[in-house]
């Protein structure tokens, strides 16, 4: 089983997503939540970096946090899976460990 990395900050504000993508092993999963959902959006300055990382890691994003910020699932980069809190819990069980990038 691979590791799950969870990122709760916007890539515009912090370096946590960049650090995560730099150190996450190939095959691991990354969940974007809280302000981190901004990293899952299309057409931003950071979209390409995230899309390019999809060859190495799989991305998930927390839907309730997208909606809270007035964004919508249609703006999520293709290939990133939108999940809810139940899905978040399932993700943690499906991976061997959970690392928070604080």
């Amino acid at each position: 089983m691979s590791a799950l990395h969870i990122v709760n900050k916007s890539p515009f504000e912090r370096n946590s997503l960049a650090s995560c993508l730099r150190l996450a092993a190939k095959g691991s999963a990354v969940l974007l939540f809280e302000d981190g959902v901004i990293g899952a959006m299309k057409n931003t300055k950071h979209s390409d970096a995230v899309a390019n990382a999809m060859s190495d890691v799989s991305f998930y994003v927390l839907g309730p946090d997208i909606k809270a910020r007035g964004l919508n699932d249609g703006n999520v980069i293709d290939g990133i899976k939108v999940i809810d809190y139940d899905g978040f819990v399932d993700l943690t069980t499906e991976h061997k460990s959970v690392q928070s990038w604080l």
Partner: protein
Amino acid sequence: MEEEGIVKKFCYMNRKAPYGTIYALESLEVVLIAAAFDQDISLVFADDGVYQLTKNQDTDGIGMKNFSKTYSALGDYDIKKIYVEKESLEERGLTTDDLQALKYEDEDDDWAEKDSLFVVGRDELSKIINEQDVVLSF
């Protein structure tokens, strides 16, 4: 009373997305109180702060209070200088269509409804910020 007291240019600088931290909400709260002080108020939304003004915020799924409707009440408090940085919108793939329309009624023009939200470029915003007497950061 206004002419007797000090009138300073107060700027409320909002640079963070809503809900991830409380700053957007606490900024709104202080602005509504500040409106009673007869000062010259500007609000600036830059960096991730532009997400504070998005339409259709829905916080049901995260268990937090949705305060986004309050922005449209700012006009009633005579707050009519709300600046959004153009480049911050562009870097996030956002346009004014994604934002709430913010208006006020101009008492000097037969209460005509006018825009209070201005999208300004980096250079203009820089000038606006530089003219302020007090900048409060959120």
